[in-house]
């Protein structure tokens, strides 16, 4: 981590308990539907994993972009949440993703990290990597803090 990144992180609460809770919770809701799980979680960084199979591919035979976008969005939102206090969460207001190379099968990892936490807007990025650690997609998002329980995934 860069010096600059570290100082930014220290300006905010590091919600270790929330990171631990994310890691321990069994997949539910959309995560269960999609077959995604939280593989790593620490304040400012959350990794989601999904084993890509036929159920994730579109007619063209590659993993559908919305699936990749979903795990990237969630990894980003959750990484922000690990730097927010209990009682607050966040919701995505804007998201941009570049699809760099197609994914067909195997483990996909969405590595979400916090870029900047401001009072009204939260900024994060995510890399989606295949099982050979090649970049599949890169996303960035702008989120807004909301009371916990509203606008959650």
């Amino acid at each position, binding site marked *: 981590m860069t010096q600059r990144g570290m100082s930014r992180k220290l300006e905010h609460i590091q919600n270790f308990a929330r990171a631990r809770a994310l890691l321990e919770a069994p997949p539910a809701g959309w995560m269960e539907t999609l077959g995604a799980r939280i593989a790593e979680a620490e304040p400012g960084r959350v990794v989601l994993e999904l084993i890509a199979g036929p159920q994730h591919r579109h007619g063209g035979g590659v993993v559908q972009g919305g699936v990749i976008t979903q795990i990237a*969005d969630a990894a980003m939102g959750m990484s922000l949440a690990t730097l927010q206090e209990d009682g607050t969460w966040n919701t995505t207001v*804007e998201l941009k993703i570049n699809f760099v190379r197609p994914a067909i099968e195997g483990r996909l990892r969405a590595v979400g990290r916090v870029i900047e936490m401001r009072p009204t807007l939260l900024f994060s990025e995510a890399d989606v990597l295949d099982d050979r650690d090649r970049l599949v997609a890169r996303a960035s998002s702008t989120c807004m803090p909301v009371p916990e329980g509203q606008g959650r995934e």
Partner: protein
Amino acid sequence: MSRVADVAERAMVAQAGTAKIFDLKLNYISSFEPDEDLTVTASVVHAGHRTVVTECRVEAGARLVATASATFAVTREEGINEGSNAD
């Protein structure tokens, strides 16, 4: 949330035909309830030789839920007349 992305992208791919998406931008405007019907309307903004640009609106009744725009790389299929889609 990105179920919206999923729906939006499917609609846009349907419009753009044979193309690989390489860029997708989403704006989430308002939330919607699980039992609400969503209408996703996609249109082609630009259909060029190399790229296709599309836009899309996701609406729950009269309420705007999300907007999206995407860029696609054109991939030619056998038998398609190359000259028929001049920029």
